[in-house]
């Protein structure tokens, strides 16, 4: 016998459980929601009328990608609050990739055409694959006080490890979770309402949002990324460590928060 989980899975019950998790999280995790709201306010400010200057044909693609990045960020919050942790990391990965693509195209506008015409011919596709290597683009990001060079790469690797790609750590974490629980309400064991995996997902979602806002700030030369944000994220994660509902944050392999 391979698996010990189960009576029947029912989609309606799974989605009901996810919705209940979301509602409960929005009540119990208000300090995290407040941090997420800071990112939304920052993004909204940067995108506000009159702040972004330049030729529309030059900033159109980066702005489009930034909006996609924001789309992934909000979806990561939405699924994260429901306790769908691997999916949350998967969406964080896309958020970072979109923002890094946007920044790279802003720095080198000729990349915009390569991005737009990716599917036109096999040659265009190869050209795209050559120019848009995400690790190369992340390595090319400038080192700044706002976003130190290693932070984006560390964060990106973390999202890959825990759900942005079918890798061992996330699959094992899921398996341990499923294996340790009896089947609940037709599949609720797929959701993580509390504990270390959720805390890690919340922390990296916030830092992913911050990374996105910093890249927006750098590409559009406005200064609206929230100050001391990484420090406050870390402080909240550490304070959650003492919460009896959580088990600590020690496994995070991302770089330590910097000091300004």
């Amino acid at each position, binding site marked *: 016998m391979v*698996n010990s989980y189960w009576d029947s899975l029912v989609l*309606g019950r799974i*989605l009901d459980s996810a919705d209940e998790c979301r509602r409960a999280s929005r009540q119990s995790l208000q300090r995290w929601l407040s941090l997420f709201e800071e990112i*939304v306010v920052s993004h909204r400010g940067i995108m506000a*009328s*009159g702040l972004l200057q330049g030729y529309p044909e030059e900033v*159109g693609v980066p702005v489009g990608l930034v909006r996609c990045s924001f*789309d992934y960020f909000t979806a990561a919050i939405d699924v994260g609050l429901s306790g769908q942790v691997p999916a949350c990391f998967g969406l964080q990965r896309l958020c970072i990739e979109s923002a890094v693509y946007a920044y790279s195209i802003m720095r080198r506008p000729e990349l915009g055409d390569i991005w737009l015409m990716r599917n036109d011919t096999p040659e265009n596709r190869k050209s795209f694959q050559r120019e848009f290597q995400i690790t190369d683009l992340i390595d090319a990001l400038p080192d700044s006080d706002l976003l130190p060079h290693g932070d984006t790469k560390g964060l990106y690797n973390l999202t890959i490890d825990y759900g942005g790609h079918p890798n061992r*750590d996330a699959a094992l974490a*899921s398996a341990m979770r499923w294996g340790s629980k009896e089947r609940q309400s037709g599949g609720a064991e797929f959701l993580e309402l509390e504990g270390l995996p959720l805390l890690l997902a919340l922390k990296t979602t916030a830092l992913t949002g911050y990374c996105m806002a910093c890249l927006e700030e750098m590409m559009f030369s406005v200064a609206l990324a929230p100050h001391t944000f990484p420090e406050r994220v870390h402080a909240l994660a550490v304070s959650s460590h003492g919460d009896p509902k959580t088990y600590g944050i020690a496994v995070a392999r991302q770089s330590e928060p910097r000091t300004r």
Partner: protein
Amino acid sequence: MIDEGSRLPTITQILDRAEGNRHVSRHLLSEWFSLFQEVIVSHDGIMTPGFVQGNLENLTIPMLLVNYAFSYFIAAVDTCLSGQVSPCFALQRLCIESAVYAHAIVRTPELGTVWAMRDTSDADLQACKAKFKIGDFLNDLPDTGPAPRATVRSLYDRTISYGGHPNSGGALSVGGVDETDEYVSVGIELFSEGRPLLHALEATADVGYVMVCLEDLMFNVHLAPAGLPERIAMLSAAGLHNTTVGGNKPAE
């Protein structure tokens, strides 16, 4: 001048809207909901204790990955019903990748060790990156049978184009450019209706079907729902008759 920020809601409004959309979709899209449930019943049947036989040690990692694929499928359904189309395609991509990895490890069990050792050393990481190329694994799928190579490849490419990777197809499918004398607005809608949503629903159902077909293949069982692709196509065609590009579903 670019004008975007004035139209953006707060995080509370975004989460409220997502919840409202899910609530409405579960009533309006009950036929799609029923198709998704068929996929879940199939997966659940295949995973029934005692059903899968064989060298179970070799199946541990594929089982992990299959469960992982399933969790992405559920998340794809969840985000799709909320109208978050690009994230839905991103989760579909991960669902296919997980299922295809599982299938590859069943076919070549030594790959399981490479996958499990990925983070042990730099050499192991490089070995994993060299062996685990999704394009190669897709090419290794059989020509015919429940999960033919061309079908899975085409579906995977679709998920990449529409949100599984930051490509123009995904960005342009849910956005647009408005230009006036005063400003240019490059808008990407956080929540989609109409044809983009219909497209996402169809792809989600197709991805779920491919997932259970791969489970059929790797565990040598036959529980993938018969005729599901045809029913997905019919439901999609019926939806097109009732859907405009902008959508006819009430927002709330």
